[in-house]
């Protein structure tokens, strides 16, 4: 990166103090201090109260649903997201640009809108629910509904992470594989898949992290029944409505710790990806 690695003293540009000052001030006031409030508040009534709230059977069931559905949704998106990315990168066909632009819809569509739209489709009166429900596979107001919502939310994360890496897989290695007698399927599974594996894993982690904390698109389609179809973010709101601030903070604390762990993992993954690219 030319020009990027200049020393502080040798950079002739002004404004380090001002720009870094604004950055650190704004970051502290908006993000760091408020987030620290969660940790302080969750422990304000002692470790015993913390564990009673953070590890109650109801909270454990909510984590299981939030993280389980997020993992399942992200896994589904890895399969279909890879397929969509492949089609977008490798083939040209009418409507390709439109398809590419549509992928970002879950980023742009407000989550509450997605939530009521999915519910309208998957409820027993909706056009998908009308088929699935008599077939013995009800989705709306069941844990399956949570998976559907998180699959909707997560698709662009996988497609957008895999797309650029897939575009850069050099045709030379594919040609080499072909010359050495590999079939197309062997080339895909032995040559292409390994080189995009870090990107796919990054996409999975991004979709998973987003899905685990997702609220708006889920609450309409989930049944919100404690122990069955209640997601962790909803449980935080329930605690808050009962004025149990410490309880809400304790559950938030657990969710934050898991998100931070995923974030840390993501950084490792990106490191892996860069090393592979180098």
């Amino acid at each position, binding site marked *: 990166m030319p020009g990027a690695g200049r020393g502080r003293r040798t950079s002739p540009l002004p404004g380090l103090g001002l720009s870094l000052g604004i950055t650190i001030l704004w970051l502290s006031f908006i993000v760091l201090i408020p987030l620290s409030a969660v940790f302080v508040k969750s422990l304000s009534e002692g470790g015993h109260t913390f564990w009673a709230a953070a590890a109650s059977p109801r909270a454990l069931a909510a984590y299981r649903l939030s993280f389980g559905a997020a993992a399942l949704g992200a896994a589904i998106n890895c399969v279909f997201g890879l397929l969509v990315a492949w089609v977008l990168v490798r083939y040209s066909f009418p409507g390709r640009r439109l398809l590419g632009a549509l992928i970002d819809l879950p980023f742009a569509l*407000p989550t509450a809108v997605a939530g009521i739209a999915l519910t309208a*489709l998957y409820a027993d009166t909706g056009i998908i629910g009308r088929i699935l429900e008599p077939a013995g596979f009800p989705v709306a107001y069941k844990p399956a509904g949570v998976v559907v919502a998180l699959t*909707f939310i997560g698709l662009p994360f996988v497609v957008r992470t895999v797309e650029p890496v897939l575009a850069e897989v050099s045709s030379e290695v594919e040609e080499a594989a072909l010359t050495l007698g590999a079939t*197309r399927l062997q080339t895909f599974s032995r040559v292409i898949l390994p080189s995009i594996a870090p990107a796919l894993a990054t996409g999975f982690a991004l979709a998973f992290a987003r899905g685990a904390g997702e609220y708006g698109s889920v609450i309409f389609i989930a049944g919100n029944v404690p122990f069955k179809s209640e997601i*962790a973010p909803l449980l935080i709101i329930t605690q808050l409505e009962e004025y149990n601030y410490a309880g809400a903070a304790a559950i938030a604390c657990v969710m934050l710790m898991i998100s*931070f762990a995923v974030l840390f993992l993501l950084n490792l993954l990106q490191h892996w990806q860069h090393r592979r690219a180098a």
Partner: protein
Amino acid sequence: MTAAGLREPAAAKGLLILVAVAYVALMLLLPLGAVLYEALRKGWEMWWAAVSEPDARSSIRLTLIVAAIAVPLNTIFGVAAAWAISKFRFPGKTALIALIELPFSVSPVVSGLVFVLMFGAQGWFGPWLEQHDIHVIFALPGLVLATVFVTFPFVARQLIPLMTAQGSSDEEAALTLGASGWQTFWRVTVPNIRFGLLYGVLLCNARAMGEFGAVSVVSGHIRGETNTMPLQVEALYNDYDFVAAFAVASLLALLALVTLALKSAIEWRYSDELAAIH
């Protein structure tokens, strides 16, 4: 050697395209269609009545006000952060970038919760605020704070890679020719980054107007007063007033479509300038 062996058979290619298009149509296009269909089900007059009703109008106004405050704040922050990070070298830069992206991995509900813990009745500053009759939670300042938190990384995250890739040689040349620091910024840097900036502001705005979980926690859900458009959608939906809920939702869906169209237009026309982002 672009031999046929490097491509899939036409039938396989057709099948892959078909599955990808069908998946996107089912998962993304159908929910979007459902919003518009449900909104207009009882005709244009009912749609107009629903979106021009006083509470709906007030929610539209509130959404615009919140975005009009939050987006410029995060734009200034984003430019400052990108300037500091891309033009200078200082210790802890990687950690700073990770901290800026932190709000992306925090659940929207937790993003709202942190401000309740700070400014709510039982929060750190709650008693003091009450004494001085300042309302943060269940009022406009709370909605703005939660929205700023959630949209915090959007502009910075687009500009950091773009400005890093551009380096600082243009700015150095301007300074050598006698321009002042601010002149250099407005006449050299801003024109260089305008499309990246526009792109970041666009995504920031879409999220600011559509945010649901975070504002839901701090809003108090007072109709005509503290309900933004997504919260109004929820309130109407929970009243079983589906036509009105989908009518307000259709405005948000329209916002999403406009955002996607502008975003794609920027990507197609200025792909070279934005290359660093992807």
